[in-house]
């Protein structure tokens, strides 16, 4: 293990102008590389130096989490694949395998505070374990590759890898064993349970094996759902503006502006109902199909909007705005199937074939009624 660098003030550190100089460079720094803030030092192993990382979260981790949770730089939130360590890992320390999505790695190390363990990060192209396993990026070949590339057999004396249970969709345990000699032990679904799992001598009880989808787990997904929308919103606004201006005098900019704002309110009502209300109240909403759940939240949003617009709109316009809100809410609620851990692709496809004609029809009917109302008024 390399000794920690100790800073000693010298005469050169005297203040000459402004603030005193920053401390000298750490001896762990290398030209052309950035020393990550969560690496405390490097442990020497038979397979070379291994970065030892912190298990507590600082500003960096919270800032990164807020960023990826709101969809900012989510595709670039990666860390380098390879071997890491926490605590003082030795030859008998367990090896935990993880994805190279920054949030996955940060969450894992936060959850194993106090443990001496190795973390083998495989290259999932910055995608979390569950989604990467579905795409075979958290896959058999990649686990085998990293075990060999890091010369893990030189670092640890045992032959066990602990993989997150959600990785089983992409990793065939017996192939890993055959190719590397390492036995795959399926760990718990949630990183929170890993310490308990290791204390229980690698035994996961039923609760650790089952996925959960609590209200909080659903709410944190909403900002990313919304982050996909700016572009479609712009197109929707252009269409709404053009259709809103059609009147007996061919096109009126003043009317187009005033009426398109009403359409946009209906649109945002649908977005809020489908992408925020539906996920939040998911188990309470009637129906199994998400598109049906979205209709209920869409009707609730419509009721609120029409209350606000009462007196300024024709009956025809109210119907048109309601159709738009409900159609968008139903579609976006259906889209949330992609973020849940319990919807089957066969089910989603069946639902889409049934629901999408109605959603498109609702939107089209809304547009036709809206233009018609513009001409007759």
């Amino acid at each position, binding site marked *: 293990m390399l000794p920690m660098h100790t800073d000693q003030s010298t005469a050169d550190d005297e203040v000459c102008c402004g603030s005193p100089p920053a401390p000298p460079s750490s001896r762990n720094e290398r030209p052309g590389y950035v020393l990550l803030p969560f690496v405390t030092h490097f442990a020497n192993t038979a397979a070379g130096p291994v970065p030892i990382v912190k298990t507590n979260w600082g500003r960096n981790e919270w800032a990164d989490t807020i960023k990826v949770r709101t969809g900012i730089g989510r595709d670039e939130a990666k860390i380098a694949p390879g071997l890491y360590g926490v605590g003082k890992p030795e030859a008998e320390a367990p090896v935990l395998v993880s994805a190279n999505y920054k949030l996955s790695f940060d969450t894992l190390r936060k959850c194993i505070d106090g443990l001496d363990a190795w973390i083998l990060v495989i290259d999932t192209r910055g995608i979390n374990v569950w989604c990467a396993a579905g795409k075979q990026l958290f896959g058999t070949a990649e686990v085998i590759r990293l075990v060999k590339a890091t010369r893990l057999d030189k670092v640890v004396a045992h032959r066990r890898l602990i993989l997150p*249970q959600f990785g089983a969709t992409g*990793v065939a345990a017996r192939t890993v064993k055959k190719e590397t000699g390492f036995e795959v032990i399926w760990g718990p679904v949630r990183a929170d349970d890993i310490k308990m799992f290791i204390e229980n001598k690698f035994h996961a009880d039923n609760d650790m094996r089952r996925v959960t989808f609590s209200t909080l787990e659903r709410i944190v997904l909403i900002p990313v759902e919304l982050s996909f929308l700016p572009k479609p919103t712009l197109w929707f606004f252009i269409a709404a503006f053009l259709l809103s201006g059609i009147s007996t005098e061919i096109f009126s900019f003043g009317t187009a502006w005033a009426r398109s704002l009403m359409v946009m309110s209906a649109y945002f009502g649908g977005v809020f109902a489908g992408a925020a209300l539906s996920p939040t109240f998911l188990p309470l909403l009637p129906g199994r199909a998400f598109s049906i759940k979205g209709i209920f939240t869409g009707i609730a949003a419509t009721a609120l909007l029409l209350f606000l617009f009462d007196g300024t709109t024709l009956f025809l316009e109210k119907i048109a705005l309601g159709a738009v809100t409900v159609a968008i809410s139903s579609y976006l609620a259906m889209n949330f199937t992609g973020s849940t851990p319990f919807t089957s692709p066969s089910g989603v496809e069946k639902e889409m074939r049934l629901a999408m004609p109605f959603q498109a029809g609702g939107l089209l009917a809304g547009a036709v009624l809206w233009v018609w109302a513009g001409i007759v008024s």
Partner: protein
Amino acid sequence: MKQFRYLKNVTTLKLNPEVCIGCGMCTNVCPHGVFIQNSRKAKIVDLNGCMECGACALNCPTAAISVTPGVGCASYIIQTWVKAYVPGANNSKSGGCC
């Protein structure tokens, strides 16, 4: 997860008990408790809880389980539809999916 139920009778999951050796791997990897081990054989006890993730089939040593795995995600399915009907449609990333 019992309060979260998706569409019934759609899953492609199948278990061939003749081939099953009762190793218990499917019970281990399934996140929805679809299987139990019963007199040294796996048994499906909650077929409609299956989300077709494919973990059981991939880890079954005797290929006793079959399922068409996939991503249960609307935008991904739209992408595959577009690709099927529009030859050469680019594989652009669009939102919603993991």
